[in-house]
């Protein structure tokens, strides 16, 4: 911990350390019952696993200032479930698949990412908003089938991730994926 906050310092968007985990404050409301002490009703989102909790804090409750650092790194390769990234000084960091989640399917060699470290451990990897991937497998789009509202079909990209794509997308096509949602964004037309 690099310092302290009290509950009175909390505000939306502030990052705090609580019970040894980094949280971001997503909701904050001041209440003060009758003749009582100030109470801060908060919702905190854990930066490690995304879980949220609702808590009532009192003015003298103390939070740490989390030791957080953001670094720009480049993806180089993976060994099984371990993904190796390199910073500008060619120093390597291994990030496990559990931290990357589905993002690991969207990586490509030399992909520039932002890695968030908490107490020197990588906890979050932010990719470019859009990445391009090639479709490895999908059924040809069945024309005339759109009346049922079924305008997408399943597809698999090179590397194994599955997502719904529009009917006109074919095997071998390059598509853009929005890495924030993991959803299809666009088809990339190649000559």
């Amino acid at each position, binding site marked *: 911990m690099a310092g302290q906050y009290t509950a009175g310092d909390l505000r939306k968007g502030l990052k705090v350390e609580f019970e040894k985990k980094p949280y971001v404050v997503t909701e904050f409301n*001041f209440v003060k019952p*009758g*003749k*009582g002490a*100030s*109470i801060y009703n908060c919702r905190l989102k854990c930066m490690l696993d995304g879980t949220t909790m609702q808590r009532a804090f009192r003015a003298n409750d103390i939070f740490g200032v989390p030791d957080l650092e953001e670094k720009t790194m480049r993806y180089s390769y993976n060994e099984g479930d371990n993904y190796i990234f390199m910073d500008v000084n060619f120093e390597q960091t291994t990030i496990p698949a559990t931290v990357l989640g589905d993002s690991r399917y969207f990586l490509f060699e030399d992909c520039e990412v932002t890695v968030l470290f908490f107490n020197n451990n990588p906890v979050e990897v932010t990719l470019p908003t859009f990445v391009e991937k090639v479709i490895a497998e999908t059924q040809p789009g069945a024309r005339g089938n759109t009346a049922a509202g079924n305008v997408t079909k399943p597809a698999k990209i090179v590397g194994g991730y599955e997502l719904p794509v529009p009917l006109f997308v074919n095997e071998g096509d390059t598509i853009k994926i929005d890495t924030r949602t993991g959803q299809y964004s666009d088809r990339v037309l190649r000559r």
Partner: protein
Amino acid sequence: MDERERLAALAPVLRLRGAVNEAIRGFFLERDFIEVETPVRVAVPAMERHIDAEPAGDAWLRTSPELHMKRLLAAGLPRLFQIGPCFRKGERGERHNPEYSMLEWYRAGADYRVMLTEIEALLRRVASAVRLRDEGALKIREEIFSRPWIVESVRDIFRREAGWDPVAHYDEERFERDLVGRVEPSLPRDRCVALLDYPAAQGALARLKPGAAALAERWELYAGGLELANAFSELTDAAEQRRRFETWGNERRAEGSAVYPLDEAFLAALAAGMPPSGGVALGLDRLVMALAGLRTLDDLLPFREVSKQ
């Protein structure tokens, strides 16, 4: 929405506010109350355990008009009311603003039970008066005030909603957490509820119940779940009052909060004799919120000033 549109859209609630004030004044003047104005900028703010005063030059802004009004009571003016601004440092939220309007009234010879009867008559009258004037721009929630009121002891509602007895086993932190987390959320949204008889430690400036010193003669009124007013059978014992001020001062010092000098003029007035009295403090902004069904002060206040920093 730009500022002009936002302010123009507030016209119905601003009109409602004026009508509320007018109905309140009519009610008290008919009952032979004197409307008073006491200093807003005070040499000594009322010391309370958890209320912080806003400094104003070499003085403070009042957190409540209580001590001055009690000096008038002690001087023999038996029925007093006041409508005016009060200030509480650091209180900002959907239902709090550092500057707000208070209606406060005192009645000599009355206790907190009498004051409960009086606030019920007041609020029914106000709700009905503003409904009649409503021009269709706002839906006035008169029913919150006209439906039968519920009166329940703090002990009973804590036993039911939080599963413990806060009078027999008082614990400040647990009391306040459960009040906000369990008791208040359980209150009905469609009517008024008065919670009665607080643990003595939550008594503030209330007298203890004769024959039951674990309880303070205090109630809090909730309108549709919104905390609206607080009342006491006022403490008139100067020695006990001094002791409480000193205790809160010590507790405040220990936690690093500002400690105010004792208000000796008020203590002298108490010592010279203040009649047994009932007093009520009501948040006017919140009353308008409850009447108009507004969720936050942002829907009511045309301006919310922020501090320098």
